[in-house]
């Protein structure tokens, strides 16, 4: 009787996995696909950049236009990311912590920039601030340049990276609920104190995760920035646009050298992302494992 039982158990356990040859075939297929579609393109960036040796690689980076592109990229990210950070926290606070009419619609609108083509994102700012746009004549009369200048690049970058941080924070803050914040308020904390000492420590890893993804996209955006930049060398070229110009001029090594900077940024992003994700999971697990609150037994 017990023999029949253990046979059933064995069969059931075998039923939740596959024969070894199926397992190995599936793993090989999955890894092969990833090797072909992810690892090979990444490796090709560095291989092409170093094709004529390390000296040519450095030469490609030492160009003055490359430096101004790097500077502009850093400035753009330095403006766009903090602005979207403040927005992300505000949006996540009102969407995750309260119930109100139209919340689902608001969430959809926050997500909207993700599904708009980058080219359309650039175009809408041209229609607003371009020479023939809504504010074009007024801007020209006051000698303010937005399109084909740095402000336009910053605006387009803000648009395409708009939802990143809000999107990371909303589900996280919804999962954590309001209990801790309510306790803080009841104990007399102000709203800002509650945010700084209760909410922020809880969401810090999710926040970091959102910020680095936002930053990677801000530094790497191509389509939207390409529409509003005007491609003025040394002035309105970000690194991705610089890569495009060099590539189209058949300066392959210099193009891939600049591209390798962005590929390195991507790798660093993935490493920080993996760490932040891991920490975030641990924090959630620790919170879930906390014993339910009850008065400590006397005398222990």
């Amino acid at each position, binding site marked *: 009787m017990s023999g029949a039982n253990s046979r059933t158990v064995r069969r059931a356990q*075998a039923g939740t996995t596959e024969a070894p040859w199926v397992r190995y075939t599936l793993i090989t297929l999955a890894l092969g696909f990833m090797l072909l579609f992810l690892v090979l393109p990444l490796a090709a960036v560095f291989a092409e950049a170093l094709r004529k040796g390390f000296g040519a690689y450095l030469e490609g980076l030492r160009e003055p236009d490359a430096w101004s592109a790097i500077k502009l990229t850093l400035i753009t990210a330095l403006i766009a990311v903090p602005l979207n950070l403040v927005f992300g926290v505000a949006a996540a606070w009102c969407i995750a912590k309260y119930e109100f009419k139209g919340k689902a619609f608001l969430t959809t609108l926050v997500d909207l920039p993700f599904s708009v083509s980058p080219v359309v994102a650039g175009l809408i700012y041209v229609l607003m601030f371009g020479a023939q746009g809504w504010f074009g004549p007024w801007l020209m009369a006051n000698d303010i340049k937005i399109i084909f200048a740095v402000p336009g690049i910053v605006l387009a970058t803000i648009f395409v990276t*708009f939802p990143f941080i809000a999107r990371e924070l909303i589900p996280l803050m919804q999962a954590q609920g309001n209990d801790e914040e309510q306790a803080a308020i009841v104990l007399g904390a102000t709203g800002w104190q509650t945010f700084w000492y209760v909410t922020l420590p809880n969401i810090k890893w999710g926040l970091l995760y959102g910020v680095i993804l936002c930053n990677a996209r801000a530094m790497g955006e191509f389509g939207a920035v390409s529409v509003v930049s005007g491609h003025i060398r040394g002035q309105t070229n970000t690194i991705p646009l610089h890569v495009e110009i060099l590539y189209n001029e058949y300066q392959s090594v210099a193009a891939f050298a600049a591209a390798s900077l962005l590929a390195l940024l991507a790798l660093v992003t993935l490493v920080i992302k993996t760490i932040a994700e891991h920490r975030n999971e641990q924090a959630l697990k620790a919170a879930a494992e906390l014993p339910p609150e009850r008065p400590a037994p006397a005398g222990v």
Partner: protein
Amino acid sequence: MTTATAVAAAPAGRRAPKRVLPGFGLSLGYTLFYLSIIVLIPLSALIFKTFTLTWEQFWAAISAPRVMASYRLTFGASFLAALVNLVFGLLIAWVLVRYKFPGKKIVDALVDLPFALPTAVAGISLTALLAGNGWVGSILEPMGIQLAFKPAGIVIALIFIGLPFVVRTVQPVLEDAEKELEEAATCLGATRLQTFTKVILPSITPALLTGFAMAFARAVGEYGSVIFIAGNMPMVSEITPLIIIGKLEQYDYAGATATAVAVVMLVISFILLLIINALQAWQRRHAGAPA
């Protein structure tokens, strides 16, 4: 939901204060303000600009043969790429959740590479690989297969761009799936393949479709990775976003084509967004259903 439980927990009979946490007005107000100036007002500029066109102008712009060819290419290539990602995304998610192998953590992290790697970098790198003198192209071209500067190259770039979506939507659902159901199926005499198609697949279908729709939506609007590899021949390998760029580069702002085509793309992306939202709601209901 959390507010509902908080209200329910308040002593019955006394009306609980409506909102304990401060900052609702401030955070909602700022969210609406920022959303308006960055997203809503600029998007409405596009809509208003289109209203200055007559219906005939609008229709002529969006149905010109060259534009129609670009829709066919954009949607066809995006659909094919999303389909490939559906199959291989499921495979990768399955392997990452169910099997153990050395280097799994690195492989898992690498899945997000297309999110982190700028599209222009992906574009030139894929082109270098697939061109006649590239690592892959030099093997394929003697066999008569040319991928770079052809529509096939566009599909490859879009596969790269969309790869993480299906993996990242299916992975958490597979992780939460209850193995007891599979054990029960096996005990009742199902083969492993039957268990997969009748028990596992239905439970991950909403997630699979969500990932598919996301990959498709992303691919339709994609520009950076495609233009380097596409060859950009009108009627053959010119994607819809490139039509808009082309018109802008001719300083054809007053012309109808750029704005009209952009409105078409905007409407399509909004519809796709609503479909994705509906799929996600379905997925949540699916997950919330009693096991």
